[in-house]
């Protein structure tokens, strides 16, 4: 039986799962880097 | 005014608006016809094969045709900001939905009435099973498509790419109903198996989703 299908399947799982987790992590970092100033920075006290 | 009164007012409004231009019905009719012709070219069926595939093709043609018309039904409400007025009106929102869904049902029914004899001609069809059951399958199937279709068309009102969204969201949800109407029609045409379970599936589907649409339309209309 084709043992390479086993390899494809396991690789596919790692790629999909790892890829998704990596994407989330990447987005997380990107949001962290573009941190906006805290709310209230635009107002001045009279 | 009673709930039924509200529904009838909305229904009359939609029928009148459509009657003035008859865009939707004409467009749907021609589109359905084109789909039938294209499928015939694709499959070039023999008489025996026709009976097996005609059910599927009929409902596919109706599905595509009604999808094109469903978005337009709500565009009518968006002109002149009518939708905002509807939201502020004290009438129950589900009456608006029901009136519109019923009017869409009538429009698609008109298309069916014209299309069905054409079908019989193009595919040399005669029902081997109980032909009169089609009188049950046609309205049940059409309502399944039109009810969810009207609801999801409203869902996509303020999205970008509205026309794209409707089929994307409608088709997956409708698959059990599509299976039911196609199988029931094929069963009636070929007489090879029982249409009963499929008709029962359509009835159950319609009850479940009509209830869901009526209950949730208010949420959708006021989704900010």
């Amino acid at each position, binding site marked *: 039986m084709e043992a390479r299908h086993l390899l494809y399947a*396991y690789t596919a799982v790692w790629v*999909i799962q790892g890829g*998704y987790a990596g994407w989330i992590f990447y987005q997380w970092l990107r*949001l962290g880097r573009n941190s*906006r100033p805290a709310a209230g920075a635009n*107002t001045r006290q009279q | 005014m009673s709930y039924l009164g509200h529904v009838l007012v909305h229904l009359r409004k939609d029928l009148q608006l459509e009657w003035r231009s008859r865009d939707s019905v004409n467009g749907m009719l021609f589109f359905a016809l084109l789909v039938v012709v294209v499928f015939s070219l694709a499959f070039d069926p023999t008489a025996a094969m026709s009976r097996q595939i005609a059910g599927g093709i009929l409902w596919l043609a109706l599905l595509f045709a009604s999808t094109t018309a469903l978005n337009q039904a709500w565009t009518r409400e968006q002109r002149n900001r009518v939708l905002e007025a509807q939201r502020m009106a004290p009438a129950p929102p589900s009456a608006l939905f029901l009136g519109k869904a019923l009017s869409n049902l009538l429009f698609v029914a008109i298309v069916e009435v014209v299309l069905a004899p054409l079908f019989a001609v193009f595919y040399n069809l005669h029902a081997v099973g109980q032909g009169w059951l089609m009188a049950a399958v046609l309205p049940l199937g059409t309502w399944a498509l039109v009810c969810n279709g009207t609801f999801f068309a409203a*869902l996509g009102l303020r999205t970008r790419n509205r026309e794209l969204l409707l089929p994307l969201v409608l088709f*997956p949800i409708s698959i*059990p109903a599509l299976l039911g109407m196609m199988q029931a029609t094929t069963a009636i045409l070929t007489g090879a198996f029982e249409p009963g379970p499929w008709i029962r599936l359509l009835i159950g589907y319609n009850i479940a989703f009509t209830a869901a649409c009526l209950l949730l339309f208010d949420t959708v209309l006021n989704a900010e």
Partner: protein
Amino acid sequence: MQRSRIFGPLGLVWFLLTLAVIVYATRLGLLLSPPEATMGNVARILYYHVPHSMLSLVFPYVNFGASLAYLYRRRRDPLKALTADAIAISAAEVTVVYGSICLVTGMLWGRVAWGIWWTWDARLTSMLLLWLLYVSYLMLRKLSSTGQAHTLAAVLSVFAAIDVPIVYMSIRWWRTQHPAPVFGGGPDSGLDPSMKPAFGWNVLAWALWGVFLLAMRYALERRKQQREQDAALQAIEASLEMAQ
């Protein structure tokens, strides 16, 4: 800006634990458990395939529950409602990921075991439809304007939840009436005791991983929501500034 507790020490511990269990389970599945009688080593695909299939049926319920919570809280407590919405989208994405893996590994398995990539049998078709439903959910979220996306998606989630049992029943009927090749009962029908440890550990591993993904995605979504809220608040304050 408070640091999310999810990515703190608990998150790290969970991540490392999950990785360890995955490695252990994979090792069990690949090396230590005996090769299957008829299929040989290829049957090891099932150690990944079946747990993912089982788990892909759990996350839709998480999405449904979160959507209901969102709809309930929407007017009563909008801030808490956003939490529910974050869980809903995370669960939907994880469903699609696990469902995709189920379909891909299933196709590879079917190709080897039965020589065909696909068949429209009851189980596969239902799985495909479930996947389609949740992809359509994600598309709706993507194409909706912000502010509405949450509510509309929650409504769709309710429809999907009503649809799932109907899909299951109708496809089963369809296949009872028109039998077609079936992709077997699968290893859960008649699982050899020597394979149970590998199987069990894989289920645990991927369940832990699923929870980890859910939590990570939730944290990301919460951060996005915070950004949106801050931006909105800034816009309001800027307009107040101009009014003065």
